[in-house]
């Protein structure tokens, strides 16, 4: 049984991005999805700070401190890019103009509730940023996360225990072990890694899993994690 590594999860999610979509990629792991789009797929990557058409990271000698994404990364613009203010950027998000957002998460509930903004870390201030806007308003909200916590506790749950980001918003979850849709009837497994039984996956999940009739093997090409 070979779980996907973090970049492989990202790769897998990126395979489902369709040609021509407007995509917002969350800070952290999700931004790497742009490296793994299927050949020929052309998308517009929207960053909350107003960059409509974010390109790859800037080369070291091409850095411009005013050209950044929502994660403060120094980026480039793709052809056809434009830049709007925050008011327009979030009007775009809230207005349903983002086809897909891919976000990290702590927990996802069987009804699609998402908890990804507040881990209740002692002695640290809250940090919500644009997470609630994206989760509540993108047309499709996909989550990338490890199937269980570092301590082995499930992240797919009947109800989220951590503070919610948005209610009933997640449509699909990509983990190191499976691809899981959130349906009106709860979690539906679309893909599962080779060598893992359905019972084993269920044991690592905190809510009932159904399995698609055509449930496939979850695979990804080898991708080395950076040191």
């Amino acid at each position, binding site marked *: 049984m070979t779980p996907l590594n973090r970049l492989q999860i990202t790769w897998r999610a990126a395979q489902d991005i369709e040609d021509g979509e407007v995509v917002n990629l969350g800070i952290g792991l999700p931004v790497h999805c742009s490296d793994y789009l299927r050949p020929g797929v052309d998308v517009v990557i929207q*960053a*909350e*700070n*107003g*960059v409509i058409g974010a390109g790859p990271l800037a080369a070291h000698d091409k850095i*411009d*401190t*005013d*050209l*950044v*994404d*929502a*994660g*403060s990364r*120094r980026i480039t613009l793709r052809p056809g890019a434009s*830049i*709007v*203010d*925050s*008011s327009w*950027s*979030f*009007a775009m*998000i*809230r207005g349903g103009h983002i086809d897909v957002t891919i976000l990290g998460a702590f927990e996802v509930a069987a009804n699609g*509730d998402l908890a990804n903004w507040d881990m209740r870390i002692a*002695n*640290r*201030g*809250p*940090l*919500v*940023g*644009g*997470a*609630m*806007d994206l989760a*509540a*308003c993108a047309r499709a909200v996909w989550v990338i996360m490890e199937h269980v916590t570092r301590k082995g506790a499930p992240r797919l749950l009947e109800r989220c225990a951590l*503070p*919610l*980001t*948005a*209610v009933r918003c997640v449509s699909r979850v990509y983990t190191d072990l499976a691809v899981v849709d959130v349906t009106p009837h709860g979690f539906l497994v679309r893909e599962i890694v080779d060598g893992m039984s359905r019972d084993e996956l269920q044991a690592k999940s905190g809510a009932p899993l159904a399995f698609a009739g055509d449930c496939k093997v979850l695979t990804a090409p080898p991708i080395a994690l950076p040191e």
Partner: protein
Amino acid sequence: MPIDKRVASAAQSLEGVGDGATVFISGFGGAGFPNVLIRALRERGPKNLTLVVNSATHRYSLTHELIDANLVRKVICTAARGHTKDPSAFESRWMEGKIELECVPQGTFTERIRAAGAGIPAFFTPVGFGTELTAGKEVRRFGERDYVLEPAIAGDLALIRADTADRYGNLTFRYAQMNFGPVMATAAKLAVAEVRAFAEEPIPHAQVQLPGVYVDRAVAVS
């Protein structure tokens, strides 16, 4: 007298700012922080400020200097977490109960500011419904969704960063420098822009990204 909003110094651009002011500070993702104005505000030293700023502690912003100097009573922001292992100046004071915090989803944050500048006292939004950040707020269903009523955030002072200003106060921005600057300028009684340079001639109309109507004073900082 021909309109001229250019002033000679950051200190001069803050004349009239007093204790208890609600202060907008632009900047997001590392771009657009009006750091010269922030420092000038610290030097001026008004007390009991309410800061309305995306991040209470960003590594490229000097906002923390206002907090360190104990000028701040309350922060309205979307990110209140420091970027180092130890709690930030803000976090320490917040945990000690010395600073009040209102944490707001970023789109709601910018829309509430826009609303103040646009004469809208409150609007409904789907963002934050069912979360603790909107606890206690009025909820209403439109169609098949639930929405939360959010009030405008008006301010006394906006400190924003732009690239160039002309004598009329018209502004241009470089790349992602814009972010909250335009809406913050619309929602403050006094809007001050720090710019890289003054434009000698009026900025051509199609290049203006914020009309000078919204800018009261501009100061060139390089």
